[in-house]
């Protein structure tokens, strides 16, 4: 589904991603772990070209999604971002109604059919396990929801445009434990339909939700393997040290 080949990425002179090649299979959850500033979020944001929004950056290597290099000149970035959805660290609903938040992606992508939009909004909210909580107040402001609900709304918003990949950048780090477990449950459910890549600071979370885990340090991919193996019997000592909490 996603494959990177010898990716190097620079912020100005700073070499943030060092020669990373990895593969992510469809319908799996891949977790990126590592200490702050290790490049895991930067690497994640390469997959929907969010780093394009930052000035003075440079990329080398290839990033293939569905076997197409997404940095090829022929790629329409807006189309790419429709196919590769993203959920951010802090819930960031728009200052609009719950309904409008979910409908936004459809509307900006030219969908006009109101019935279709309403149906998609309902489906997406259901898929994000939020429908029952909001079905009676769809036209209330998204800001009336709790933090955890807002984050599920942002997931619903991303699902509405029917992506095949879902990128999550520490999606639960700003949430309380109950909301966090709801998001994790949701990730389990979404796996059957989407390829999910999640960045997390929380080792237990990576262990709970992911099939594969990549450990990043100082811009390098130190180790990448099945999550079980990674947490029980990692190949590298650095990984072992990080996972057992000796640094980070």
């Amino acid at each position, binding site marked *: 589904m996603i494959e990177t080949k010898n990716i190097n990425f620079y912020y100005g002179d700073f070499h943030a991603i060092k020669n990373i090649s990895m593969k992510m299979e469809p319908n799996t959850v891949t977790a990126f772990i590592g200490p702050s500033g290790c490049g895991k979020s930067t690497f994640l944001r390469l997959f929907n070209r969010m780093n394009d929004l930052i000035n003075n950056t440079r990329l080398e290597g290839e990033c293939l999604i569905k076997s197409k290099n997404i940095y090829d000149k022929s790629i329409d970035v807006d189309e790419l*971002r429709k196919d590769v959805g993203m959920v*951010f660290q802090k819930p960031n609903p728009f200052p*609009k109604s719950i309904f409008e938040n979910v409908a936004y*992606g459809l509307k900006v992508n030219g969908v006009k059919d109101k019935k279709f939009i309403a149906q998609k909004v309902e489906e997406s909210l259901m898929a994000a396990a939020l429908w029952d909580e909001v079905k009676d107040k769809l036209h209330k402001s998204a800001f009336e929801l709790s933090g955890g609900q807002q984050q599920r709304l942002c997931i619903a*918003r*991303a699902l509405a445009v029917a992506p095949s990949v879902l990128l999550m950048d520490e999606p639960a780090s700003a949430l309380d434990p109950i909301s966090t477990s709801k998001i994790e449950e949701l990730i389990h459910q979404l796996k059957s339909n989407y390829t999910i890549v999640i960045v997390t600071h929380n080792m237990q979370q990576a262990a709970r939700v992911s099939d594969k885990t990549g450990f990043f340090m100082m811009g390098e991919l130190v180790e990448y393997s099945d999550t079980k193996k990674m947490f029980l019997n990692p190949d590298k000592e650095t990984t072992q040290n990080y996972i057992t909490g000796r640094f980070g």
Partner: protein
Amino acid sequence: MNKKIKQNIAFFVFRLFSLLIVGVLISILGFIAINGIQVIDWEFLTTAPKEGMTEGGIFPAIVGTFYLVVGSLIFAVPLGVMSAIYTVEYAGNGRIVRFIRMMTNNLASIPSIVFGLFGMALFVNKLGFGDSIIAGSLTLGLLTLPIIIRTSEEALKAVPESYRTGSYALGAGKLQTIRKVILPSAMPNILTGIILSVGRVSGETAPILFTVAAYFLPSLPDSIFSQAMALPYHLYVLATSGTDVEASRPIAYGTALVLIMIVLFFNLLAAFLRQRLNKKLKQH
């Protein structure tokens, strides 16, 4: 002298000065109100001046000021907001933007009489609009542009970056993001800029002096190419060069009061709109 007494004296002086400022404002308003309220009645607000402006009302001047306010906003709001969108959303922080910003600040510091002179040279003479509402509106519009640009820029900058990234992440283009997310969020603060400029436009005399203002007109303007009377200029005329300055004095105070009330009204209206939009943004 011990510390405590010094402190008390200092506090007393500070308080005195700040009360003094309030006092000045209240006495100006009070003075205008007391002298002006006597002449204000329905007739004063709805009829034209009579008997060489020593009697009658100020209706044409009210209408003229209203036209000028609206006219200048029609011109300055789209231009100012669009240029703010350019500098904040598109241009980054390069040399061009710094240059534009510097020029905007310079524009703000030009004396208003110079705007009047420029408006006369360009709109009245060069473009051949003559003394007209359109020439006056454009001149006043130029005067308010810096205010609108600056406040719109601040309003756009205040929109959280996460709205932008959230929108782009859904496949929205830049223009769509600006139209559907950024502008609606910035609107209440942009309105603040418009409030400020309305206050400025309705009170300015110098820019309209050579571009639109008429000494006396028996009837209302019939097109944007007509001259118009306007409250601030009318006040000036009544106070300095009427047919009988002494006899027009009460009317001058009445005019001043109406002018203040109009500025106040526009401010309240815009503040109300702003509050409603803010509320709607939160609830909707």
